[in-house]
């Protein structure tokens, strides 16, 4: 046990000290945080008030142009227009809108933003439309009344008989993101284990080590060490993302805006947004299920990855054995979308119960609500699956790591399973 701990410690420390690990762990949260904070910032900077001068000859748009929160229109006469065109820098105005018959032009000394152009275009279109309808003798009110927009509120009846409002979009979002994350993590850390095994084999250190410890100890030590790396990275990502985005929030977003958008003072803008979006979904259950499926999904697959690594001499030779491992993973990845269209269907049920596909598919189903017995059964089977693959992998591993320079076939692997210890 003590020796297994030593192995876990080495596997963990070696990876955590790597530059690539540190860079990845720091960069990803910055990226994530900027994905959250940048849209807020962008909408913030666009709030600036723009003064627009309007000059028209034959038409009558300027009477109907309405000032909005950040666009303010003023009617120009010819002298005002000329002084703006000659010296736009000196003017208080941001741009000049010139309307001559059917031709519309905006003059400015800088490129005006797309949003501003669209906003003005929309107003002009509406005014033009209204005028045309009026000419044709159609009452605008009739047209406005005929326009309809319907939104359905969705509510879930929980087991206590309460109803909570739910959002299908949020369920899809969460199911998709967690499913893909599990898929990515299993692949990332699984191949990390496989590379580690191949490294030990090509470095020829493996025989030195297994003269001190059992091959199984070495394998499980590596798997658990990498699992700790994965957990550390994940937890750091979550903590850092929250930390960075809340720092960025207080730095860049004015406090006025925060108090505008939320009521309670102790909540940040981001959490408030998240809560609003995911109302009705048990986030805590999803978080812990995610950790469970991440950990055990990884453990089950990484044992197989380790077995593959032990059977080959170089990473280039892994492909023939990787296929049967990656098929259930890729299969579940592809099926995330269809499963979420019918999260209670037969396919969804079985794939979320069978261990090889359950880590991804159950995460995709979970936000839509899953019976607790299904969840427990799926988790139990995953643990059994993990024990089973570890057992099989251990048998392949202990023979494989001592085989050099031999192309291994599936028949050979089968024989290894039957060797006595």
């Amino acid at each position: 046990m003590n020796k297994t701990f030593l192995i876990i410690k080495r596997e963990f420390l070696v990876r955590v000290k790597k530059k690539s690990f540190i860079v990845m762990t720091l960069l990803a949260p910055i990226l994530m945080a900027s994905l959250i904070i940048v849209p807020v910032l962008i909408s913030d900077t666009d709030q600036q008030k723009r003064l627009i001068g309007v000059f028209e000859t034959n038409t009558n748009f300027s009477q109907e142009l309405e000032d909005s929160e950040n666009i303010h229109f003023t009617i120009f006469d010819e002298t005002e227009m000329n002084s703006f065109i000659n010296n736009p820098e000196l003017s208080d105005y941001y741009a000049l809108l010139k309307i001559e018959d059917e031709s519309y032009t905006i003059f400015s000394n800088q490129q005006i933003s797309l949003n501003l152009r669209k906003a003005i275009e929309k107003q002009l279109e509406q005014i033009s439309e209204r005028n045309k309808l009026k000419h044709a003798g159609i009452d605008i009110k009739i047209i406005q009344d005929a326009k309809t927009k319907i939104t359905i509120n969705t509510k879930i009846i929980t087991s206590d008989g309460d109803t909570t409002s739910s959002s299908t979009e949020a369920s899809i979002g969460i199911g998709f993101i967690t499913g893909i994350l599990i898929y990515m993590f299993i692949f990332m850390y699984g191949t990390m284990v496989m590379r580690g095994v191949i490294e030990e084999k090509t470095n020829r250190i493996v025989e030195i080590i297994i003269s001190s410890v059992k091959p199984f100890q070495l394998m499980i030590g590596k798997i658990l060490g990498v699992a700790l790396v994965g957990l550390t990275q994940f937890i750091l990502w979550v903590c850092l993302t929250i930390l960075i985005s809340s720092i960025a929030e207080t730095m860049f977003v004015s406090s006025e805006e925060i108090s505008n958008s939320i009521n309670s003072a102790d909540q940040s803008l981001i959490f408030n947004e998240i809560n609003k979006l995911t109302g009705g979904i048990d986030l805590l259950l999803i978080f812990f299920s995610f950790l469970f499926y991440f950990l055990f999904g990884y453990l089950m697959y990484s044992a197989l990855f380790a077995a593959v690594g032990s059977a080959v001499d170089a990473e280039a030779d892994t492909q023939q054995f990787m296929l049967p491992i990656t098929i259930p993973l890729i299969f579940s990845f592809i099926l995330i979308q269809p499963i979420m269209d019918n999260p209670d269907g037969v396919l969804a049920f079985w794939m979320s119960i069978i261990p090889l596909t359950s880590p991804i598919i159950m995460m995709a189903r979970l936000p839509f609500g899953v019976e607790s017995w299904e969840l427990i059964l799926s988790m139990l089977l995953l643990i059994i699956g993990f024990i089973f693959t570890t057992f099989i992998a251990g048998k392949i591993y202990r023979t494989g790591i001592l085989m050099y320079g031999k192309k291994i076939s599936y028949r050979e692997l089968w024989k290894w399973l039957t060797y006595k210890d």
Partner: protein
Amino acid sequence: MNDTLLSAENVVKKYGDYTALNKANISVPKSSIYGLLGPNGAGKTTLMRIINQITAPDSGRVLFDGGLLNKEHIKEIGYLPEERGLYKKMKVGDQALYLAQLKGMSYGEAIKKLRFWFEKLDITSWWHKKVEELSKGMAQKIQFVVTVIHQPKLLIFDEPFSGFDPINASIIRDEILNLRKNGTTIIFSTHRMESVEEICDHIALINKSKTILEGPINKIKAEFQDENYEVIIDSNQLRNSERFDVLSQNKNKFEIKINSKNELKEAIDFINQNHNIISFKKNLASIEDIFIKTVGK
């Protein structure tokens, strides 16, 4: 029997249809250097792996220090496999510490012993280097240190001199002899017969999964002694006699076989009468000859 450290009795190991060891027997005396010889694929590595408990025999038993070999003995054995290496990206010191601790040493003990060996082999300055910065010979030295660091009763070296230049090879050979002097028993496997002659007391020859020869090196050599002599005379023509057969000739050097042990004197006299003898000596069977003779059969 009490001075036997390790013995393997009727050890059988099969991998599927392939028999790696078929009733192999060895008996390694305490404080001896025991040469384990045999052609490639004879089963030497399998036997060494069984002794190291990397794999278990299908039948037969292995006794260590009077008792059945068990997990407790792992820290009593040091193994330098033929296929050996180190983690390339890891620092020399960290790596040596890790491997020593895996052998069951405590951190403090390991660091003390490593300091001692690093100073002895004059490699202290490598402590903070990564293994990939070392040459192959330097890495081999580290591997030697981590093999002997826990002061095992039994050391098993598989081709210990491969990758060493002659100077370092002799340093390592001296260390091996030193360890034996301090009471360590050493099993030594190699294809270099001259180093077997030089340092081994006992040998075992394994061929086709079986031990075909085993015992003290002098006894085995005596067994293979035949009545062959090397004669150098002042002529390229040796007169024939019924007392001996000429086996081979190289210019004025002849290898002859005396037909009957009692006729040695007569044979010498016969040659002496006909030629001037420059040298006449008994052909001592070398381990290499014995190897080729027994394995070739």
